[in-house]
Protein backbone atom coordinates (compact mmCIF):
# COMPACT_ATOMS: atom_id res chain seq x y z
CA UNK A 1 0.00 0.00 0.00
CA UNK A 2 1.30 3.47 -0.78
CA UNK A 3 2.43 5.73 2.07
CA UNK A 4 -0.72 7.54 3.28
CA UNK A 5 1.28 10.68 4.16
CA UNK A 6 2.47 10.88 0.53
CA UNK A 7 -1.16 10.55 -0.62
CA UNK A 8 -2.22 13.34 1.77
CA UNK A 9 0.51 15.61 0.42
CA UNK A 10 -0.73 15.19 -3.16
CA UNK A 11 -4.08 16.70 -2.21
CA UNK A 12 -4.65 20.37 -1.46
CA UNK A 13 -6.04 20.91 2.04
CA UNK A 14 -9.76 21.34 1.67
CA UNK A 15 -10.22 23.88 4.48
CA UNK A 16 -7.76 26.27 2.80
CA UNK A 17 -8.41 25.59 -0.84
CA UNK A 18 -12.12 25.03 -1.44
CA UNK A 19 -13.54 28.30 -0.12
CA UNK A 20 -15.71 30.32 -2.43
CA UNK A 21 -13.94 33.66 -3.02
CA UNK A 22 -16.54 35.79 -1.25
CA UNK A 23 -15.65 34.15 2.06
CA UNK A 24 -12.35 35.93 2.30
CA UNK A 25 -12.33 37.00 5.96
CA UNK A 26 -13.47 33.75 7.57
CA UNK A 27 -10.91 31.17 6.43
CA UNK A 28 -12.32 28.05 8.04
CA UNK A 29 -14.87 26.68 10.51
CA UNK A 30 -14.06 23.81 12.85
CA UNK A 31 -16.06 21.94 15.48
CA UNK A 32 -14.60 19.38 17.88
CA UNK A 33 -16.54 17.04 20.15
CA UNK A 34 -14.98 15.31 23.17
CA UNK A 35 -16.35 11.86 24.03
CA UNK A 36 -15.31 8.98 26.32
CA UNK A 37 -16.45 5.41 26.77
CA UNK A 38 -18.31 4.30 29.89
CA UNK A 39 -16.27 1.98 32.10
CA UNK A 40 -12.80 2.97 30.85
CA UNK A 41 -10.30 5.35 32.51
CA UNK A 42 -9.60 8.64 30.70
CA UNK A 43 -6.35 8.55 28.65
CA UNK A 44 -4.28 10.33 31.33
CA UNK A 45 -5.00 7.47 33.76
CA UNK A 46 -5.03 4.61 31.24
CA UNK A 47 -2.30 1.96 31.00
CA UNK A 48 -1.21 0.60 27.64
CA UNK A 49 -3.64 -2.32 27.70
CA UNK A 50 -6.66 -0.17 28.44
CA UNK A 51 -5.65 2.50 25.89
CA UNK A 52 -5.28 -0.19 23.21
CA UNK A 53 -8.65 -1.71 24.09
CA UNK A 54 -10.30 1.71 23.62
CA UNK A 55 -8.42 2.23 20.38
CA UNK A 56 -9.60 -1.14 18.98
CA UNK A 57 -13.18 -0.55 20.07
CA UNK A 58 -13.39 2.87 18.42
CA UNK A 59 -11.70 1.62 15.23
CA UNK A 60 -14.22 -1.22 15.06
CA UNK A 61 -17.16 1.11 15.70
CA UNK A 62 -15.96 3.44 12.91
CA UNK A 63 -15.68 0.51 10.51
CA UNK A 64 -19.09 -0.96 11.46
CA UNK A 65 -20.90 2.36 11.25
CA UNK A 66 -19.09 3.31 8.05
CA UNK A 67 -18.21 6.63 9.72
CA UNK A 68 -15.63 8.71 7.80
CA UNK A 69 -16.00 6.26 4.93
CA UNK A 70 -14.09 3.69 7.07
CA UNK A 71 -12.65 1.14 6.53
CA UNK A 72 -11.51 3.09 3.45
CA UNK A 73 -10.39 6.08 5.51
CA UNK A 74 -6.84 7.13 6.31
CA UNK A 75 -5.48 5.49 9.44
CA UNK A 76 -2.38 6.77 11.27
CA UNK A 77 -0.74 5.36 14.41
CA UNK A 78 1.44 8.30 15.56
CA UNK A 79 3.59 6.24 17.95
CA UNK A 80 4.90 4.29 14.96
CA UNK A 81 5.42 7.25 12.62
CA UNK A 82 8.57 9.21 11.72
CA UNK A 83 8.72 12.62 13.46
CA UNK A 84 8.48 14.57 10.19
CA UNK A 85 5.35 12.65 9.13
CA UNK A 86 3.76 13.43 12.49
CA UNK A 87 4.43 17.13 11.93
CA UNK A 88 2.53 16.92 8.63
CA UNK A 89 -0.61 15.88 10.57
CA UNK A 90 -0.12 18.83 12.92
CA UNK A 91 0.38 21.37 10.12
CA UNK A 92 -2.76 20.09 8.35
CA UNK A 93 -4.68 20.62 11.62
CA UNK A 94 -5.60 16.94 11.84
CA UNK A 95 -3.88 16.33 15.17
CA UNK A 96 -2.68 18.20 18.25
CA UNK A 97 0.89 18.26 19.56
CA UNK A 98 -0.20 16.60 22.81
CA UNK A 99 -1.82 13.73 20.90
CA UNK A 100 1.21 13.13 18.66
CA UNK A 101 3.56 12.94 21.62
CA UNK A 102 1.63 10.34 23.61
CA UNK A 103 3.66 7.12 23.88
CA UNK A 104 0.97 4.49 23.22
CA UNK A 105 -2.60 3.71 22.20
CA UNK A 106 -3.12 6.70 19.87
CA UNK A 107 -4.73 6.45 16.43
CA UNK A 108 -6.03 9.00 13.94
CA UNK A 109 -8.83 8.17 11.48
CA UNK A 110 -9.37 10.66 8.67
CA UNK A 111 -12.03 10.85 5.96
CA UNK A 112 -10.56 10.82 2.42
CA UNK A 113 -11.16 14.56 1.89
CA UNK A 114 -9.74 15.42 5.36
CA UNK A 115 -12.97 17.19 6.35
CA UNK A 116 -13.69 14.95 9.35
CA UNK A 117 -11.45 12.94 11.64
CA UNK A 118 -11.24 11.18 14.99
CA UNK A 119 -8.27 11.37 17.32
CA UNK A 120 -8.34 8.29 19.56
CA UNK A 121 -6.78 8.68 23.02
CA UNK A 122 -5.97 12.37 22.95
CA UNK A 123 -6.91 14.19 26.18
CA UNK A 124 -10.25 12.41 25.78
CA UNK A 125 -10.67 8.97 24.27
CA UNK A 126 -12.46 10.41 21.25
CA UNK A 127 -11.95 13.82 19.77
CA UNK A 128 -14.20 14.15 16.73
CA UNK A 129 -13.37 16.98 14.36
CA UNK A 130 -15.01 18.49 11.29
CA UNK A 131 -13.38 21.37 9.47
CA UNK A 132 -14.64 23.18 6.38
CA UNK A 133 -13.52 26.27 4.49
CA UNK A 134 -15.31 29.59 5.04
CA UNK A 135 -17.88 30.50 7.70
CA UNK A 136 -20.27 27.53 7.87
CA UNK A 137 -21.12 26.74 11.47
CA UNK A 138 -24.50 25.14 10.68
CA UNK A 139 -23.16 22.86 7.96
CA UNK A 140 -20.17 21.78 10.06
CA UNK A 141 -22.41 21.09 13.06
CA UNK A 142 -24.74 18.96 10.95
CA UNK A 143 -21.80 16.93 9.66
CA UNK A 144 -20.14 16.32 13.03
CA UNK A 145 -23.49 15.64 14.72
CA UNK A 146 -24.17 12.88 12.18
CA UNK A 147 -20.70 11.42 12.74
CA UNK A 148 -21.29 11.48 16.51
CA UNK A 149 -24.69 9.73 16.12
CA UNK A 150 -23.22 7.07 13.82
CA UNK A 151 -20.50 6.24 16.35
CA UNK A 152 -22.75 6.38 19.41
CA UNK A 153 -24.95 3.65 17.92
CA UNK A 154 -21.93 1.34 18.30
CA UNK A 155 -20.30 2.73 21.47
CA UNK A 156 -21.54 3.43 24.98
CA UNK A 157 -20.44 6.93 25.91
CA UNK A 158 -19.72 8.13 29.48
CA UNK A 159 -22.74 10.39 30.02
CA UNK A 160 -24.51 11.87 33.04
CA UNK A 161 -28.05 13.30 33.17
CA UNK A 162 -27.01 16.53 34.83
CA UNK A 163 -23.41 16.97 33.61
CA UNK A 164 -23.79 15.70 30.04
CA UNK A 165 -20.82 14.08 28.29
CA UNK A 166 -18.14 13.36 30.90
CA UNK A 167 -14.74 14.59 29.77
CA UNK A 168 -11.22 14.24 31.09
CA UNK A 169 -11.08 17.94 31.98
CA UNK A 170 -14.20 19.58 33.48
CA UNK A 171 -13.64 22.60 31.21
CA UNK A 172 -15.12 20.50 28.35
CA UNK A 173 -18.00 19.02 30.35
CA UNK A 174 -21.59 19.03 29.07
CA UNK A 175 -21.70 19.31 25.30
CA UNK A 176 -17.97 18.54 25.00
CA UNK A 177 -18.09 20.94 22.07
CA UNK A 178 -15.55 23.52 20.90
CA UNK A 179 -16.65 25.41 17.83
CA UNK A 180 -14.19 27.81 16.25
CA UNK A 181 -13.87 30.07 13.24
CA UNK A 182 -10.51 31.19 11.87
CA UNK A 183 -10.54 34.80 10.82
CA UNK A 184 -8.05 36.80 8.78
CA UNK A 185 -8.08 40.30 10.29
CA UNK A 186 -5.20 42.33 8.78
CA UNK A 187 -7.35 45.49 8.53
CA UNK A 188 -8.06 45.60 12.27
CA UNK A 189 -4.37 44.84 13.00
CA UNK A 190 -3.15 47.61 10.66
CA UNK A 191 -5.66 50.08 12.06
CA UNK A 192 -4.40 49.27 15.58
CA UNK A 193 -7.90 48.25 16.60
CA UNK A 194 -7.28 44.57 17.22
CA UNK A 195 -6.49 44.87 20.97
CA UNK A 196 -9.76 46.46 22.07
CA UNK A 197 -11.74 44.31 19.61
CA UNK A 198 -10.33 41.07 21.02
CA UNK A 199 -10.85 42.25 24.59
CA UNK A 200 -14.49 42.73 23.68
CA UNK A 201 -14.58 39.17 22.35
CA UNK A 202 -13.08 37.83 25.61
CA UNK A 203 -15.75 39.65 27.61
CA UNK A 204 -18.40 37.81 25.59
CA UNK A 205 -17.14 34.53 27.07
CA UNK A 206 -15.32 33.46 23.92
CA UNK A 207 -11.66 32.46 23.55
CA UNK A 208 -9.14 33.88 21.07
CA UNK A 209 -6.16 31.86 19.84
CA UNK A 210 -3.38 31.88 17.23
CA UNK A 211 -3.30 29.98 13.95
CA UNK A 212 -2.63 26.39 14.97
CA UNK A 213 -4.83 26.02 18.01
CA UNK A 214 -2.64 26.61 21.04
CA UNK A 215 -0.88 29.75 22.24
CA UNK A 216 -1.84 33.35 21.64
CA UNK A 217 0.57 34.30 18.86
CA UNK A 218 -1.27 35.87 15.94
CA UNK A 219 1.33 35.88 13.19
CA UNK A 220 -0.26 36.14 9.80
CA UNK A 221 -3.12 38.17 11.35
CA UNK A 222 -5.04 34.92 11.82
CA UNK A 223 -7.30 34.61 14.84
CA UNK A 224 -9.27 31.62 15.99
CA UNK A 225 -12.41 32.52 17.93
CA UNK A 226 -14.11 29.75 19.91
CA UNK A 227 -16.65 29.13 22.67
CA UNK A 228 -15.27 29.05 26.20
CA UNK A 229 -18.15 27.46 28.11
CA UNK A 230 -19.49 24.00 27.28
CA UNK A 231 -22.08 23.40 30.03
CA UNK A 232 -25.40 25.15 30.66
CA UNK A 233 -26.33 25.90 27.05
CA UNK A 234 -27.39 23.69 24.16
CA UNK A 235 -25.15 23.28 21.11
CA UNK A 236 -27.58 25.45 19.12
CA UNK A 237 -27.32 28.28 21.67
CA UNK A 238 -23.52 28.13 21.77
CA UNK A 239 -23.35 28.19 17.97
CA UNK A 240 -25.86 31.06 17.68
CA UNK A 241 -23.83 33.17 20.13
CA UNK A 242 -20.56 32.44 18.30
CA UNK A 243 -22.19 33.15 14.94
CA UNK A 244 -23.44 36.55 16.09
CA UNK A 245 -19.99 37.59 17.32
CA UNK A 246 -18.20 36.34 14.17
CA UNK A 247 -20.64 38.24 11.92
CA UNK A 248 -19.92 41.36 13.94
CA UNK A 249 -16.12 40.83 13.64
CA UNK A 250 -16.40 40.36 9.87
CA UNK A 251 -18.32 43.64 9.63
CA UNK A 252 -15.68 45.40 11.73
CA UNK A 253 -12.85 44.03 9.57
CA UNK A 254 -14.64 45.16 6.38
CA UNK A 255 -15.12 48.65 7.85
CA UNK A 256 -11.47 48.83 8.94
CA UNK A 257 -10.35 47.92 5.40
CA UNK A 258 -12.60 50.54 3.82
CA UNK A 259 -11.41 53.17 6.31
CA UNK A 260 -7.77 52.35 5.56
CA UNK A 261 -8.44 52.61 1.83
CA UNK A 262 -10.19 55.94 2.23
CA UNK A 263 -7.98 57.59 4.81
CA UNK A 264 -4.54 55.99 4.48
CA UNK A 265 -4.59 54.52 1.02
CA UNK A 266 -0.90 54.83 0.21
CA UNK A 267 0.28 53.30 3.51
CA UNK A 268 -1.97 50.33 2.83
CA UNK A 269 -0.87 49.99 -0.80
CA UNK A 270 2.77 50.37 0.25
CA UNK A 271 2.52 47.58 2.82
CA UNK A 272 0.76 45.23 0.42
CA UNK A 273 3.23 46.06 -2.38
CA UNK A 274 6.29 45.53 -0.18
CA UNK A 275 4.93 42.19 1.03
CA UNK A 276 4.37 41.08 -2.58
CA UNK A 277 7.89 42.26 -3.42
CA UNK A 278 9.40 40.29 -0.55
CA UNK A 279 7.58 37.12 -1.62
CA UNK A 280 8.48 37.56 -5.31
CA UNK A 281 12.11 38.56 -4.96
CA UNK A 282 13.55 37.13 -1.71
CA UNK A 283 16.15 34.39 -1.61
CA UNK A 284 15.75 33.72 2.13
CA UNK A 285 12.41 33.83 3.92
CA UNK A 286 11.84 32.96 7.57
CA UNK A 287 8.54 31.39 8.51
CA UNK A 288 7.50 34.55 10.38
CA UNK A 289 8.29 36.88 7.47
CA UNK A 290 6.60 34.61 4.97
CA UNK A 291 3.41 34.42 7.08
CA UNK A 292 3.26 38.14 7.66
CA UNK A 293 3.89 38.88 3.95
CA UNK A 294 1.33 36.31 2.81
CA UNK A 295 -1.21 37.88 5.13
CA UNK A 296 -0.73 41.32 3.53
CA UNK A 297 -0.74 39.82 0.05
CA UNK A 298 -4.02 38.07 0.86
CA UNK A 299 -5.47 41.42 1.93
CA UNK A 300 -4.30 42.89 -1.40
CA UNK A 301 -5.99 40.09 -3.33
CA UNK A 302 -9.21 40.54 -1.30
CA UNK A 303 -9.19 44.25 -2.15
CA UNK A 304 -8.75 43.46 -5.86
CA UNK A 305 -5.36 45.11 -6.05
CA UNK A 306 -3.98 42.23 -8.14
CA UNK A 307 -5.96 41.43 -11.23
CA UNK A 308 -4.83 37.88 -11.93
CA UNK A 309 -3.64 36.48 -8.62
CA UNK A 310 -6.10 33.99 -7.14
CA UNK A 311 -6.72 33.81 -3.41
CA UNK A 312 -6.51 30.01 -3.44
CA UNK A 313 -2.91 30.22 -4.63
CA UNK A 314 -2.11 32.40 -1.61
CA UNK A 315 -4.09 30.14 0.76
CA UNK A 316 -2.18 27.11 -0.48
CA UNK A 317 1.10 28.79 0.45
CA UNK A 318 -0.07 29.37 4.06
CA UNK A 319 0.26 25.59 4.43
CA UNK A 320 3.16 24.83 2.06
CA UNK A 321 5.61 27.21 3.81
CA UNK A 322 5.40 25.28 7.10
CA UNK A 323 8.59 23.39 8.03
CA UNK A 324 7.35 19.80 7.65
CA UNK A 325 5.47 20.42 4.38
CA UNK A 326 8.48 22.23 2.98
CA UNK A 327 10.76 19.30 3.79
CA UNK A 328 8.39 16.61 2.56
CA UNK A 329 7.79 18.50 -0.70
CA UNK A 330 11.55 18.89 -1.16
CA UNK A 331 12.05 15.22 -0.31
CA UNK A 332 14.86 15.88 2.17
CA UNK A 333 15.43 16.95 5.76
CA UNK A 334 16.50 20.59 5.81
CA UNK A 335 18.16 22.78 8.44
CA UNK A 336 16.45 26.02 9.40
CA UNK A 337 18.75 28.04 7.10
CA UNK A 338 18.11 25.64 4.21
CA UNK A 339 14.37 25.86 4.83
CA UNK A 340 14.49 29.65 4.57
CA UNK A 341 16.13 29.36 1.13
CA UNK A 342 13.67 26.68 0.00
CA UNK A 343 10.70 28.67 1.31
CA UNK A 344 11.78 31.74 -0.68
CA UNK A 345 12.21 29.71 -3.84
CA UNK A 346 8.76 28.13 -3.41
CA UNK A 347 7.10 31.55 -2.98
CA UNK A 348 8.93 32.94 -6.03
CA UNK A 349 7.82 30.00 -8.15
CA UNK A 350 4.20 29.94 -6.98
CA UNK A 351 3.59 33.69 -7.17
CA UNK A 352 5.45 34.47 -10.36
CA UNK A 353 3.04 36.37 -12.58
Amino acid sequence: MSDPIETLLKNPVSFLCDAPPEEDIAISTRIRLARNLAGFPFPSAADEESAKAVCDRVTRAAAESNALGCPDCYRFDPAEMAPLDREILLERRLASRDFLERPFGTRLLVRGDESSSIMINEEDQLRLQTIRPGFRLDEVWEEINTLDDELSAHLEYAYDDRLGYLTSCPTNLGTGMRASVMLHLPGLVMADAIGPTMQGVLKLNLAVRGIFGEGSDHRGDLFQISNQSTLGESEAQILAHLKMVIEQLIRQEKNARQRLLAQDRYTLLDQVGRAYGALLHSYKLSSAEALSSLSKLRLGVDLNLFGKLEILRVNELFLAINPAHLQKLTGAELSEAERDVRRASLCRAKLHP
Partner: protein
Amino acid sequence: MLCDHCKKNEATIHIKEIHDGKCVSLNLCAQCAASKEEKGELGAFGLNLADALFHIGAITQKLQQQNAAHAGAQKSGASDPESAAKSTIPEGPVCPVCGWTPEKIREANGKLGCPECYRTFADMINNAVDHFQRGKTHLGKHPASHPGHAEGALHAELQRLRRELQNCVRKEDYEQAAVCRDRIKEIQARLDEK
Protein backbone atom coordinates in the same frame (compact mmCIF):
# COMPACT_ATOMS: atom_id res chain seq x y z
CA MET B 1 6.46 46.56 26.33
CA LEU B 2 9.08 44.26 27.90
CA CYS B 3 8.46 40.64 28.86
CA ASP B 4 7.25 40.29 32.47
CA HIS B 5 9.42 37.23 32.95
CA CYS B 6 12.89 37.90 31.46
CA LYS B 7 12.50 41.73 31.34
CA LYS B 8 14.74 41.73 28.25
CA ASN B 9 12.79 40.89 25.11
CA GLU B 10 9.77 42.65 23.67
CA ALA B 11 6.55 41.02 24.92
CA THR B 12 4.53 39.68 21.99
CA ILE B 13 2.08 37.46 23.87
CA HIS B 14 -0.47 39.12 26.08
CA ILE B 15 -2.79 37.13 28.30
CA LYS B 16 -5.62 38.51 30.37
CA GLU B 17 -7.56 36.49 32.87
CA ILE B 18 -10.21 37.20 35.45
CA HIS B 19 -9.46 35.85 38.93
CA ASP B 20 -11.89 36.41 41.79
CA GLY B 21 -13.46 39.27 39.86
CA LYS B 22 -10.13 41.03 39.23
CA CYS B 23 -8.58 41.30 35.78
CA VAL B 24 -4.88 40.36 35.80
CA SER B 25 -2.57 40.45 32.81
CA LEU B 26 0.66 38.74 31.82
CA ASN B 27 2.91 39.89 28.97
CA LEU B 28 5.56 37.48 27.69
CA CYS B 29 8.11 37.23 24.90
CA ALA B 30 7.84 34.21 22.57
CA GLN B 31 10.73 32.32 24.25
CA CYS B 32 9.44 32.72 27.81
CA ALA B 33 5.90 31.84 26.72
CA ALA B 34 7.18 28.70 24.97
CA SER B 35 9.19 27.59 27.99
CA LYS B 36 6.30 28.27 30.35
CA GLU B 37 3.91 26.40 28.09
CA GLU B 38 6.31 23.45 27.95
CA LYS B 39 6.38 23.29 31.73
CA GLY B 40 2.60 23.51 31.81
CA GLU B 41 2.80 26.83 33.65
CA LEU B 42 0.81 28.97 31.28
CA GLY B 43 -2.63 27.89 32.45
CA ALA B 44 -3.90 30.54 34.83
CA PHE B 45 -0.61 32.44 35.08
CA GLY B 46 2.07 30.14 36.25
CA LEU B 47 -0.44 28.41 38.46
CA ASN B 48 -1.31 24.82 37.92
CA LEU B 49 -4.67 24.71 36.11
CA ALA B 50 -5.95 22.36 38.80
CA ASP B 51 -5.15 24.94 41.49
CA ALA B 52 -7.01 27.59 39.57
CA LEU B 53 -9.98 25.32 38.89
CA PHE B 54 -10.34 23.41 42.10
CA HIS B 55 -8.21 25.31 44.65
CA ILE B 56 -6.60 21.95 45.37
CA GLY B 57 -3.65 23.62 47.09
CA ALA B 58 -6.06 25.03 49.67
CA ILE B 59 -7.88 21.68 50.01
CA THR B 60 -4.63 19.79 50.61
CA GLN B 61 -3.50 22.40 53.13
CA LYS B 62 -6.79 22.17 55.01
CA LEU B 63 -6.55 18.37 55.14
CA GLN B 64 -3.00 18.61 56.43
CA GLN B 65 -4.11 20.99 59.17
CA GLN B 66 -7.02 18.72 60.10
CA ASN B 67 -4.76 15.69 60.22
CA ALA B 68 -2.14 17.53 62.26
CA ALA B 69 -4.82 18.59 64.77
CA HIS B 70 -6.12 15.02 64.83
CA ALA B 71 -2.58 13.67 65.39
CA GLY B 72 -2.06 16.19 68.20
CA ALA B 73 -5.27 15.08 69.91
CA GLN B 74 -4.26 11.44 69.58
CA LYS B 75 -0.83 12.17 71.01
CA SER B 76 -2.25 13.84 74.12
CA GLY B 77 -4.51 10.80 74.48
CA ALA B 78 -1.29 8.67 74.54
CA SER B 79 -2.23 6.44 71.61
CA ASP B 80 0.46 4.52 69.70
CA PRO B 81 3.00 6.82 67.97
CA GLU B 82 2.87 4.94 64.64
CA SER B 83 -0.73 5.80 63.82
CA ALA B 84 -0.08 9.45 64.80
CA ALA B 85 2.77 9.62 62.29
CA LYS B 86 0.64 8.00 59.56
CA SER B 87 -2.19 10.44 60.02
CA THR B 88 -0.02 13.45 59.07
CA ILE B 89 -0.38 12.26 55.45
CA PRO B 90 -3.43 14.03 53.98
CA GLU B 91 -6.34 11.67 53.44
CA GLY B 92 -8.50 13.23 50.73
CA PRO B 93 -11.16 11.29 48.86
CA VAL B 94 -9.83 8.47 46.64
CA CYS B 95 -11.67 7.43 43.47
CA PRO B 96 -12.73 3.78 43.96
CA VAL B 97 -12.35 3.00 40.24
CA CYS B 98 -9.08 4.63 39.12
CA GLY B 99 -7.53 5.37 42.54
CA TRP B 100 -6.92 9.04 41.78
CA THR B 101 -6.74 11.66 44.57
CA PRO B 102 -6.96 15.48 44.52
CA GLU B 103 -3.15 15.54 44.53
CA LYS B 104 -3.04 13.31 41.46
CA ILE B 105 -5.55 15.58 39.69
CA ARG B 106 -3.27 18.48 40.51
CA GLU B 107 -0.29 16.62 38.99
CA ALA B 108 -2.38 15.99 35.84
CA ASN B 109 -3.05 19.74 35.55
CA GLY B 110 -6.77 19.54 36.32
CA LYS B 111 -7.60 16.38 34.38
CA LEU B 112 -9.58 13.59 36.06
CA GLY B 113 -8.81 9.87 36.04
CA CYS B 114 -12.13 8.33 34.95
CA PRO B 115 -15.88 9.05 34.68
CA GLU B 116 -16.38 7.89 38.30
CA CYS B 117 -14.12 10.76 39.50
CA TYR B 118 -17.06 13.10 38.80
CA ARG B 119 -18.96 11.35 41.60
CA THR B 120 -16.00 10.96 43.96
CA PHE B 121 -14.88 14.59 43.73
CA ALA B 122 -18.38 16.03 43.17
CA ASP B 123 -18.07 18.90 45.69
CA MET B 124 -14.75 20.03 44.35
CA ILE B 125 -15.92 19.83 40.72
CA ASN B 126 -19.23 21.60 41.38
CA ASN B 127 -17.37 24.56 42.86
CA ALA B 128 -15.04 24.69 39.88
CA VAL B 129 -17.89 24.39 37.35
CA ASP B 130 -19.49 27.48 38.92
CA HIS B 131 -16.42 29.49 38.02
CA PHE B 132 -15.84 28.58 34.41
CA GLN B 133 -19.09 27.28 32.95
CA ARG B 134 -22.19 29.33 32.14
CA GLY B 135 -24.58 26.91 33.78
CA LYS B 136 -24.68 23.82 35.95
CA THR B 137 -26.93 21.55 33.91
CA HIS B 138 -26.35 19.99 30.51
CA LEU B 139 -28.89 21.24 27.99
CA GLY B 140 -27.32 19.81 24.84
CA LYS B 141 -27.79 16.56 22.93
CA HIS B 142 -27.67 13.14 24.51
CA PRO B 143 -26.53 9.77 23.15
CA ALA B 144 -29.20 8.00 21.12
CA SER B 145 -29.27 5.13 23.62
CA HIS B 146 -29.98 7.52 26.53
CA PRO B 147 -33.50 8.48 27.65
CA GLY B 148 -32.78 12.24 27.59
CA HIS B 149 -32.78 15.02 30.12
CA ALA B 150 -34.06 14.29 33.58
CA GLU B 151 -36.99 16.56 34.37
CA GLY B 152 -35.75 17.18 37.92
CA ALA B 153 -32.44 18.57 36.69
CA LEU B 154 -34.25 20.93 34.31
CA HIS B 155 -36.51 22.23 37.10
CA ALA B 156 -33.51 22.81 39.37
CA GLU B 157 -31.70 24.73 36.64
CA LEU B 158 -34.84 26.77 35.97
CA GLN B 159 -35.04 27.84 39.60
CA ARG B 160 -31.37 28.70 39.70
CA LEU B 161 -31.69 30.82 36.56
CA ARG B 162 -34.73 32.66 37.91
CA ARG B 163 -32.75 33.60 41.01
CA GLU B 164 -29.84 34.71 38.86
CA LEU B 165 -32.19 36.79 36.70
CA GLN B 166 -33.53 38.61 39.77
CA ASN B 167 -29.96 39.29 40.93
CA CYS B 168 -28.97 40.64 37.52
CA VAL B 169 -31.98 42.97 37.42
CA ARG B 170 -31.18 44.20 40.93
CA LYS B 171 -27.58 44.88 39.87
CA GLU B 172 -28.83 46.47 36.63
CA ASP B 173 -26.70 44.01 34.62
CA TYR B 174 -29.18 43.88 31.74
CA GLU B 175 -26.82 42.12 29.34
CA GLN B 176 -26.50 39.10 31.65
CA ALA B 177 -30.23 39.34 32.46
CA ALA B 178 -31.01 38.90 28.76
CA VAL B 179 -28.81 35.78 28.65
CA CYS B 180 -30.68 34.33 31.66
CA ARG B 181 -34.04 35.17 30.12
CA ASP B 182 -33.17 33.31 26.89
CA ARG B 183 -32.00 30.27 28.80
CA ILE B 184 -35.14 30.25 30.95
CA LYS B 185 -37.21 30.31 27.75
CA GLU B 186 -35.31 27.35 26.30
CA ILE B 187 -35.64 25.23 29.45
CA GLN B 188 -39.33 26.11 29.72
CA ALA B 189 -39.82 24.97 26.13
CA ARG B 190 -38.09 21.65 26.89
CA LEU B 191 -40.27 21.09 29.95
CA ASP B 192 -43.37 21.85 27.89
CA GLU B 193 -42.30 19.19 25.38
CA LYS B 194 -42.18 16.53 28.10
